[in-house]
């Protein structure tokens, strides 16, 4: 059966050209970049070249890019690092209520450590009002962390505005740009970003490698202690092939950004239209325009998301849901609840995230499959039965 992958927000397939670039650093150039002999120097040179590429993609200096093991590490390092370094200056930190768990749970951890956290709610369209953040700023606020684009509903946050508010108030601003990097042009200078997390596997790079941008002059404590790698700020022997892969994948994503985004948006819009035409009793989650071009998020009333995902899988379609059952907790996704959706509706969510390998040819199959599965589950649903009877 044909497999249609519609979960690019979860991860993407490694680009073949990227793999090719990485291969020599898997085995041939195995030298430790910290060693001074020839094969060590070659590894070092390759890493610094990768750093130059990444820096040029975000309009910053190469000395402001630090490679990490993933987006989660970058988020943890940024938040814990700012808190630890500034604990004498203040203990108040601000974030939004739709952050990825890598940020939210790190905030909750900081709360346990005695920091005060403010979680600012987003508006009903899944976008944060920068003025609401500004209102929460106190004398002892040391950090504002707001994600660039949301992983579930794709909404793009007013990062430049929040950045300028933070800068004006002399507060460090971190953004988790894991979903945005490679899809949206990012200029860290123009947007007043102090710290930014990215992850390679979201833009057709390898898993297990990420980066943290740290603006020159921003001081944060180290998360890892040990060797002197990454200008003494992140100890650990470098993941050389991963770093090469991250840089190459980012470079290719930027070079092809317009083409890919156009291609993806056409397919995304066609699927969205199809679903809206074929399936009644649905809710489209998140702002329709201020969102990533690859993202669709619907709630289908009267059904539950995990059952929907499993049945779509039978049809060869890989998608995801924010239902409680797929999140492994009792509550549906905090992002959908943040939009003000009641639990019973949030349980029936479907996220489709398209990619450059998505095809216009599959649109009809995707829409028909979803319509069939939704209908089948509704026929089984006592909620739907009650609803239909009430409608007469």
């Amino acid at each position: 059966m044909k497999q249609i992958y519609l979960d690019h927000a979860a991860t993407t397939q490694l680009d073949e050209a990227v793999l090719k670039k990485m291969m020599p650093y898997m085995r041939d150039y195995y030298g430790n970049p910290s060693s001074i002999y020839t094969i060590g120097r070659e590894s070092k040179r390759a890493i610094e070249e990768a750093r130059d590429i990444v820096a040029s993609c975000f309009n910053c200096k190469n000395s402001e890019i630090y490679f990490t093991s993933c987006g989660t590490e970058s988020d943890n390092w940024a938040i814990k690092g700012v808190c630890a370094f500034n604990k004498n200056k203040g203990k108040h930190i601000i974030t939004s209520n739709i952050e990825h768990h890598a940020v939210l749970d790190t905030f909750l951890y900081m709360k346990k450590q005695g920091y005060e956290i403010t979680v600012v709610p987003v508006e009903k369209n899944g976008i944060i009002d920068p003025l609401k953040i500004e209102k929460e700023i106190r004398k002892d606020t040391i950090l504002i962390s707001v994600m660039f684009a949301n992983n579930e509903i794709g909404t793009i946050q007013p990062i430049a505005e929040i950045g300028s508010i933070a800068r004006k108030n002399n507060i460090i601003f971190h953004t988790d740009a894991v979903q945005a990097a490679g899809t949206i042009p990012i200029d860290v200078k123009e947007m007043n970003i102090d710290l930014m997390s990215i992850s390679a596997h979201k833009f057709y790079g390898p898993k297990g490698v990420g980066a943290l941008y740290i603006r020159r002059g921003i001081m944060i404590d180290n998360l890892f202690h040990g060797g002197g790698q990454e200008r003494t700020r992140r100890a650990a022997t470098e993941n050389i092939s991963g770093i090469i892969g991250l840089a190459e994948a980012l470079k290719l994503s930027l070079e092809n950004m317009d083409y890919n985004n156009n291609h993806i948006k056409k397919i995304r819009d066609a699927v969205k239209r199809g679903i809206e035409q074929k399936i009644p009793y649905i809710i489209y989650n998140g702002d329709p325009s201020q969102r990533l071009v690859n993202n669709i998020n619907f709630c289908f009333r009267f059904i539950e998301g995990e059952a929907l995902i499993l049945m779509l899988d039978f049809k060869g379609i890989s998608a995801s849901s924010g239902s409680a059952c797929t999140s492994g907790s009792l509550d549906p996704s905090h992002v959908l609840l943040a939009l003000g959706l009641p639990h019973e509706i949030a349980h029936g969510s479907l996220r489709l995230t398209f990619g450059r390998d998505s095809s216009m040819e599959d649109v009809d199959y995707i829409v028909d499959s979803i319509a069939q599965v939704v209908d089948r589950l509704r026929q089984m649903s006592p909620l739907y039965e009650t609803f239909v009877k009430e409608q007469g």
Partner: protein
Amino acid sequence: MYSNKVMDHFSNPRNVGELADANAVGEVGNAKCGDIMKIYMKIEDNVIKNVSFKTFGCGAAIATSSMATELVKGKSIEDALSLTNKAVMEALDGLPPVKVHCSVLAEEAIKAAINNYKKSIGEQVTEDEYTCNSCCHNKKCE
């Protein structure tokens, strides 16, 4: 994550739909928690002649409903009342720990339908704690 039996009962649920000539109906669960099970029965001479279900819920909720209806079909109501969530789980070759509550719901849905029947023929019923708001916080699930 799910056993083959669970996947089988989820993808080809037995006894699904409304039963036109049902003389007993039981519904348990809570939409807020993400599962509702409704069981329809046709009971004659103390025997469950026919049974069907409708379920709003995850894969495990649908599979446990399907299995529970299979296990009580043709049984006397006394036998059906002795059905435990454990028996439903065993028949499905187990459930992941976070899905145990689905089997509890299935047991309770069967009992709710039978109690509904007993009431309809004027029999006294001892109401259990079921009619779950229990799905999120039921001791049996732990």
